């Protein structure tokens, strides 16, 4: 039987800033249907890894493939398959919410009907539909985050890469995002996200990786990583080592 292609494959990734190794020989595989959590303290190398996966940041060695395609060799076809949400979504303040969503939909070639129904569905779930006519400059941090999430979901990507997606969201919206993440995976997609909220990671992740000073110190299924302990205990023990 032919082996299924990984949705995201990070192989021996290394990225340095001057003399400092921000990411050191990391290998992660994410398969379709998986929610993969990426945990580490501030400055551990999470954002660098995520940015390298999206092609925003170059890297020194290793390989990153999305659905079998290398991000270095063919960034455009990779980018068509995923969506990225950064930790602080600085969107186009000069656009209204709806203009921004239409801009993203145009870039991904989403049809009029599809974009209309998806915008309606997600904006309704996040209860921001009425605000879509307002300039983004007037949005709160949480509203920008919701808009960034809708924009990411608008073209139904197979892979969603998120950096701290729950920051700034109210509990109800955070719950909706978790639901949406699970729906993506149930439909054969995958999620790769970083978080500091260990309870959330423990609750929703199928697999998890812990990064410390640029090195992957533990990864695998939730059971493999934490055993009988809580994820928080395991994380703190590993951090203390």
């Amino acid at each position, binding site marked *: 039987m032919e082996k299924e292609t990984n949705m995201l494959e990070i192989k021996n990734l290394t990225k340095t*800033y*001057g003399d400092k190794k921000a990411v050191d020989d990391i290998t992660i595989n994410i398969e379709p249907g998986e929610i993969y959590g990426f945990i580490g303290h501030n400055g551990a190398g999470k954002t660098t890894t995520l940015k390298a996966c*999206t*092609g*925003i940041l*170059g890297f020194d060695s290793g390989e990153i493939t999305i659905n079998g395609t290398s991000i270095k060799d063919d960034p*455009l*076809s990779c*980018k*068509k398959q995923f969506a*990225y949400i*950064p930790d*602080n979504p*600085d*969107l*186009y*303040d*000069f*656009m*209204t*919410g*709806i*203009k921004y969503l*239409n*801009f*993203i*939909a*145009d*870039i*991904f*070639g*989403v*049809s*009029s009907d599809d*974009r*209309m129904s998806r*915008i*309606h569905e997600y904006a309704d779930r996040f209860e921001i*539909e*009425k*605000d*879509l*006519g*307002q300039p983004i400059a*007037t949005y709160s941090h949480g509203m920008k985050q919701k808009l960034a999430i809708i924009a990411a979901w608008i073209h139904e990507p197979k892979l969603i890469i998120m950096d701290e997606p729950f920051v700034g969201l109210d509990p109800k919206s955070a719950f909706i995002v978790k639901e949406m993440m699970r729906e993506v995976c149930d439909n054969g997609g995958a999620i790769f996200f970083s978080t500091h909220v260990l309870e959330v990671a423990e609750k929703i992740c199928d697999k998890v990786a812990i990064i410390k000073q640029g090195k992957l110190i533990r990864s695998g299924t939730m059971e493999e990583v934490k055993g009988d302990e809580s994820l928080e205990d395991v994380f703190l023990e590993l951090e203390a080592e």
Partner: protein
Amino acid sequence: MLKLLVKKQLMEIFKAYFYDAKKNKGRSKVKIIIMFLLFIVLMVGIMGGIFGYVADQLCKPLVMVDMKWFYFALMGLLSLLLGVFGSVFNTYAGLYLSKDNDQLLSLPIPEKYIIISRLIAVYCMALLYSASVFVPAIVVYFMTVPFDGLALFGSILMMILISMISMVMSCLLGWLVAKISLKVKNKSFITVVVTLVLIAAYYYVYFKVINSMQEFLKNVAIYGTSIKKNVYGLYMFGMVGSGDIKAMLLCTTIVALASILTWYILKQSFISMATTSGSVKKVEYKEKRTKEASVTSALLRKEFQKFTSSANYMLNCGLGIIVFPIIIVTMLIKGTDFSKAIAGAFTGKTGLIQLIIFVVLCLTMSMINTGAPSVSLEGKSIWILQSLPVSPWTVLKQKMKVELLLIAVPLTATIPVLLFYFQTKNIGLLIGFVLATYSFMMFRVLWDMFWGVKLANINWTNETAPVKQGAAALISVFSGMGISAAAILIFVVVGNEAMSVEDYFYAIIGILIFLNILLYIWLRRRGAEAFARL
């Protein structure tokens, strides 16, 4: 604390000189020196050369008839014209619209320090522009007359006073625009209109003064001893430069009083203006079907939305758009008179008139430079374009297309009008003129984008930094003026004897096409790569 704030403001202006965004690290000392040397060459070499030439033409004849004050008054007014131009369009945004307003106001920093640090940034821009006229004027003056310590002090003081006047006028206008924009809904366009109306009023008065000076010059014999009575203000203004103590005291006092008044007005209203967003109409979204657009259309639309959403961007990088219609209207009204007057003045060589028109069009095109700050203006939202499935080259092309369209449309409407009034039967000359004009248009677009990518700075807290004060924007503006003026100076100095205007046009076309190809190749390869790694 004030020192820190001023340092922050100045670092924002000169960041590209110290920091390489592409490599994400500071530049080496050698590179910093080279960058500053290039800037000095641009300022001293090109701008200094142009205004030095103007000063040289005026100085000797006026000094000989003992009208030093008139020389300083003329150069002072020219300096003031440029000083106000350099600072006026960005003062509103520079003073009130910084992204770090909330952060600074929440820190234990006296409010006056925040205002002073921003005023210093406005002053620096005014000084930069006005000094580019007045420093050559001083140099030429002391090359013409024997050295006089008091006159040197007076001329330096005059330069400082001119930049202070520029700052005061810019600040008062910025304050007025801020007041009005708080009460209106369509802020960007209203701000643009209000600013332009006020600027038009300023330049109307300015040119009235220039006219009265010309009138005075024509009738200097009649005016005789009554000079002081007729143009006393200007007389005193000019006398500062020649080292007259009474004039220095009087003008310094007036400028100081105006500065204090401006300070008082700004201080009274700073917090309320910097923290109020003004009237915002709540628009409730009604679901409706949207027509799909191609990737390039979506990107182009986004660039136009960015341009039209910012009064600061429109005023500083799109001023030429309104100059073209002004040329058309002026020609339609006074075209016959103009063509007769210019034809009478330039009878020496065939095609000289077309060369002058070419330079006027080049200068006007140089007032549209949306491409230069467009990369920096992506700011912290650059991750969007970098993570979307669009090639960096496609993004750069759409940015250039905005500038191309903004120039090409009014330019194409202006050329036939100009050619109608300045007719020539020489077809070769005509084709040369048209091709040279469009080659320059392409050059401007590619040149602006080259600097926009090369000196990109996406970490700014005030939009004024990339739009007006940033290295890319400054180089774009000054090089545009410099290259345009050089086109005619080179012909006058070198080409006049050696070749016809027609041949000169074809030489220009050749050089521009060559440069355009080089810039295109660089942007397509290295420029796109640099954009992707910002």
